[in-house]
């Protein structure tokens, strides 16, 4: 979550107060839009990603995970990369954001686990916005996307 919003440069997370660098070499993404430690974001975009037209500017909480719609015909998985779902704590707007290379994998898993306990209405709200939130049955996809195909999935109760 950005404390200063006017630039695309380094920022101090207003949620966990850590200074976050936005260097492409570290994050692997061109536009850093959430803190890699707590995964919170800030409601800055209104119509399109990066337009910076929102006046809300409230913190956005990571509420779950989804998959980007894949466009490659012959890719191994039918669906694309793992994405975070953020919800604005003030106006309840939803957005999806790419996971950066240095995002904390354990926190991403924790977000996924917490999302399994979300009310059914939240899943419906996501679907109304064209977002399919990952459910318990998608644990293998989440794990392999975070740790690779060779990694073993630990015995975790996802329910």
């Amino acid at each position, binding site marked *: 979550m950005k*404390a200063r*919003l006017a630039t695309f440069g380094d920022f101090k997370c207003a949620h966990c107060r850590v200074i976050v660098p936005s260097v492409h070499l570290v994050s692997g993404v061109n536009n850093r839009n959430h803190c890699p430690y707590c995964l919170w974001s800030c409601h800055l975009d209104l119509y399109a990603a990066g337009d910076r*037209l*929102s*006046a809300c*500017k409230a913190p956005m909480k990571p509420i779950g995970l989804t998959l980007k719609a894949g466009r490659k015909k012959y890719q191994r998985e039918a669906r694309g990369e793992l994405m975070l779902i953020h919800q604005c704590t003030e*106006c309840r707007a939803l957005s999806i954001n790419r996971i950066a290379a240095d995002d904390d994998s354990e926190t991403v898993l924790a977000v996924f686990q917490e999302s399994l306990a979300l009310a059914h209405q939240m899943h419906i709200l996501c679907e109304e916005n064209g977002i399919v939130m990952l459910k318990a049955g998608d644990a293998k996809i989440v794990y392999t996307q975070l740790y690779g195909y060779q990694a073993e999935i630990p015995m975790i109760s996802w329910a």
Partner: protein
Amino acid sequence: MNTNDKRSSPAHEDDIGVVFRKNLGHYTVHANGREIDCSLSSLLHKQLIFPTADPTSLRHTVQDVREIHHVDPVAVGDRVRYVEAEEGRGMIVEVLPRNSKLSRPAPVPSQRVFEQVIVSNADLILPVFTVANPTPKWALLDRYLVSAAAAEIPVLIVINKLDLAWKNPSFDEEIEIYRRIGYPVLLVSAATGEGIEELKQTLHGKQSVMVGKSGVGKTSLLNAIQPGLGQRVRAVGNGKFGKGRHTTTHLEMFELDFGGTLVDTPGIREFGLWNIMADELAYFFPEMAGYIGQCKFGMSCHHDLEPGCAIRKAVMAEAISPYRYQSYMNLRGEL
């Protein structure tokens, strides 16, 4: 005219005129139907300091002389007092008080920032934009509108190249933002002549100035308003964004046949705000002015991240355009 004549009749050789053109230290002053090519007195670059210890003293001895640092003490539109040296030539010795001035920080690399008066004594500012070719940059229009509001000069937004409306399908939606705020907008086409008569009526009897980036058709409009002028115009480049080429290279004021004057300016690429405080910026956005003071932090609110900001709430309620709010934030970041 010899020196003795000057001393005996000072009222006759000091005349008042209006600066119509300036170019490389030469100022063309119009006075009594004549054009006088003037230079500038060095006194206009200096400030004479008199002793203040005894205000009743009859002796006015200059104590000190300070250099005044400005780009140019004389602007087009200024009413000046000049001394005529020979037929058609003279020297400007005084700039008379200005009714209004449109200024910007001079775009010259320097440690100190100097004021550059683009035009003075203007009654109307015409920010000229296009429907397309070049693509309109509304953030630049917001800069002009703020500067005009700060200078307390009325504006008329002129949108040229109406004949190219098919190239920009979102134009109507974009210009509607300004209409809703209450800014007068005039759609014209220098190529087809549409809206030119209405523009002429608006310019009648006023000292107006056209501002805008290169290629928007300021000089083409001038030629359409007064065909006899025949000022040089060029087509915009063929690049993706249709950027204009710098055709007009100096500032000049033209006398209009139907009454009034119009200043044609070269394309302005950079237009910073001059002498505007960050805290007063919202007053120059008419749609925001009504919300000032209603924020949780009252007059201390920066309308950025503060909770309970009335302006941000108004943006979210769609009472204020998010594009205008973004312009406000960008301008505030510069001040």
